[in-house]
């Protein structure tokens, strides 16, 4: 009794209001049947059984000794229990097992399940051997033949039940309605079969003629055992699966709740506080929408290490800074390398320029191809005056055009009927290889001509790179069609030198 009281007393779940009540805390549960390492005389069976049944050890031992005189039943039962009961690895003081300790013991018991199997085999062999010995030495054949199967059935059932959680046991017993009736039928059938088998075995005379009947009886017993066990096994499996699914659902719901609390609810509170500032409210709503969208639809495929993710992040940052929405479309993706980072920075400058100086809608399109990355930033500003390129446009020129050129790419500005478009191109190699050190010698193929743009003293063919990059050359017009009036930025100086003044035909960077 002591062990049980300690168990309840030390589990604070019953008294402490903050601990969520669990089944284990509400129903004091006897410790599982284990053979303790310490405090045992022979195999620890009596000690374990005493712990399990909350009895004094010597009571149990006395019972075993007493039953041994009843045709050796005690010995047989002891051997069975010894074979089937897992041994505790670590040895907690048997009577002072706290909840934590018993968890350790349970874990240990699971870990040695293979050892249990071996023990089972050895024990069964020993039992058979003992039975044979008894049969030969004394005239107790009949009673032993009766006792062995009976004890086997009893011990098996006891053990099967004792290996289950109290919760599982309650659930099985609390089955209602049809399934319960069905279970009772099965149980009765199984018991009846087992009984028939035992009766056949018991009433059968000795001799070879009885072998057939013994075989039939054994089959009957086995069939009964299977009938008893099958629905339990099925139910156990279902219970296990249901619980797993339920746990997954609960985790998901908790995640969603946590996320909504951290994001949407906070933003709604902020919006209420800033209700008199429409621009700020719009900005907050837009940022929140984006965040929620990214969370719901798993964002732009993957990690921050990818070019697409970096582009998206930059576009969102610019959106937040100026409160102007950017319609961003990204196709394809590749790992983010040094040159990709340069493209992202140049794109950021172009986007900033667009939201600062032009009118929405601002759209950005980034196409990540196998050999070329192209990025376009398009706005709907009033356009700009080609000749009025002020000296302070150095920022855009350097951070967009110069940067792209240094990394082997190109940057072009073109004026449309309605707005302006910045086109960035960057030849890339296969996604796995590191970025080229020079950045000026992309591989052969469609992107090849682009190299000429970054080679010093190659101001000719301003529109060639873009046109050549068109797939299959099927589009001779492309972007480069109005090349006569909208030339690409010529590489009039060496790649790394900042452009100090606008060449006569250069229209870029001119939105004051």
């Amino acid at each position, binding site marked *: 009794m002591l062990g049980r009281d300690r168990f309840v007393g030390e589990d604070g779940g019953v008294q402490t209001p903050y601990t969520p009540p669990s089944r284990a805390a509400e129903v004091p549960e006897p410790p599982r049947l284990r053979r303790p390492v310490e405090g045992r005389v022979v195999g620890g069976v009596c000690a374990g059984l005493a712990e399990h049944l909350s009895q004094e050890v010597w009571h149990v031992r006395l019972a075993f000794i007493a039953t041994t005189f009843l045709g050796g039943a005690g010995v047989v039962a002891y051997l069975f229990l010894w074979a089937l009961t897992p041994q505790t690895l670590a040895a907690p003081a048997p009577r002072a097992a706290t909840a934590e300790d018993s968890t350790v013991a349970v874990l240990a018991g699971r870990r040695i399940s293979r050892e249990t199997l071996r023990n089972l085999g050895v024990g069964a062999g020993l039992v058979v051997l003992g039975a044979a010995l008894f049969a030969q030495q004394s005239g107790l054949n009949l009673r032993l033949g009766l006792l062995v199967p009976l004890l086997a059935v009893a011990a098996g059932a006891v053990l099967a039940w004792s290996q289950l959680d109290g919760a599982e046991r309650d659930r099985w017993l609390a089955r209602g309605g049809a399934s319960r009736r069905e279970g009772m039928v099965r149980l009765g059938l199984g018991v009846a079969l087992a009984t028939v088998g035992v009766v056949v075995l018991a009433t059968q005379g000795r001799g070879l003629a009885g072998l057939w009947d013994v075989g039939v009886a054994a089959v009957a017993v086995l069939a009964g055992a299977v009938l008893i066990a099958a629905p339990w096994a099925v139910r156990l499996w279902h219970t296990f699966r249901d619980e797993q699914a339920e746990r997954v659902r609960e985790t998901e719901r908790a995640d969603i709740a946590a996320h909504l609390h951290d994001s949407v609810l906070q933003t709604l509170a902020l919006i209420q506080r800033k209700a008199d500032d429409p621009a700020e409210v719009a900005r907050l709503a837009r940022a929140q929408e984006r965040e929620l*969208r990214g969370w*719901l*639809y798993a964002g732009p495929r993957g990690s921050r290490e990818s070019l697409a993710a970096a582009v998206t992040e930059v576009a969102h940052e610019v959106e937040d800074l100026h409160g102007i*929405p950017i*319609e961003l*479309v*990204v*196709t*394809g993706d590749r790992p983010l390398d040094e040159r990709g980072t340069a493209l992202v920075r140049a794109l950021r400058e172009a986007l900033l320029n667009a939201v600062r100086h032009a009118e929405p*809608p601002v*759209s950005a*399109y980034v*196409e*990540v*191809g*196998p*050999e070329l990355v192209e990025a*376009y930033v*398009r706005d709907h500003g009033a356009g700009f005056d080609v000749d009025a390129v002020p000296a302070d446009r150095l920022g855009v020129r350097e951070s967009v055009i110069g940067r792209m050129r240094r990394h082997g790419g190109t940057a072009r500005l073109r004026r*449309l*009927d*309605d707005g302006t*478009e910045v086109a960035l191109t960057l030849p890339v190699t296969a996604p796995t290889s590191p970025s080229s050190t020079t950045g000026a010698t992309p591989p052969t193929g469609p992107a090849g001509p682009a190299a000429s743009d970054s080679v010093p003293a190659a101001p000719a063919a301003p529109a060639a790179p873009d046109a050549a990059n*068109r*797939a*299959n050359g*099927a*589009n001779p*017009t*492309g*972007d480069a*069609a109005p090349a006569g009036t909208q030339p690409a930025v010529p590489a009039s100086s060496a790649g790394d030198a900042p452009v100090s003044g606008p060449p006569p035909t250069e229209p870029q960077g001119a939105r004051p």
Partner: protein
Amino acid sequence: MTDPIRLVLVDDHRMFRSGVKAELDASLEVVGEAPDVDTAVDVVARTRPDVVLLDVHLPGGNGNGGSDVISGSRGVTTPAGAPVRFLALSVSDAAEDVIAVIRAGARGYVTKTINGADLTSAIRRVADGDAVFSPRLAGFVLDAFGAAAGEVAEVDEELDRLSAREREVMRLIARGYQYKEVAKELFISIKTVETHVSSVLRKLQLSSRHELTAWAVGRRLL
């Protein structure tokens, strides 16, 4: 504009429906509204509109939202005999949602952030039997057909790839170009641009390309 385009609004948010109604100009007449799939199928069959503006996500039906409205309204024609046309409208950025409703038969897709003038012209375009692609849908298409990775059809009839010219048109739309800007850029007529876009729409609806069927299977449409 001779007759106003007769329009049905299907969206489960009443506020959004009234917002759209306020933004549309006089050349469009809203003849019906519906908040869910089953009502929408009823209203479409009864009013026989020119265009149905259809939210992708709707309650009711078989759980496939706008796609269910389209499949439930198959065979319905306008009084003039033209098929009822659907324009999908969504806040969703998920490719499978958009592709699913397109493959069910919608003539285009726009996002809910579209402004009134653009929405009006998109509806008018759909009423004329043309296709409407938002930049985002064009991006999806380029991705789904592998066009961004350089896959291009040898012949126009190939369903699983875009032709070089279709790819160009899609790229320009993804860059935010209007149809007339695309036409000017490629030195072709607006009508030709519309032909290319309709051809892409047809491929999008009929192609058995893996990326598209995978999305459709994910939405239990096949």
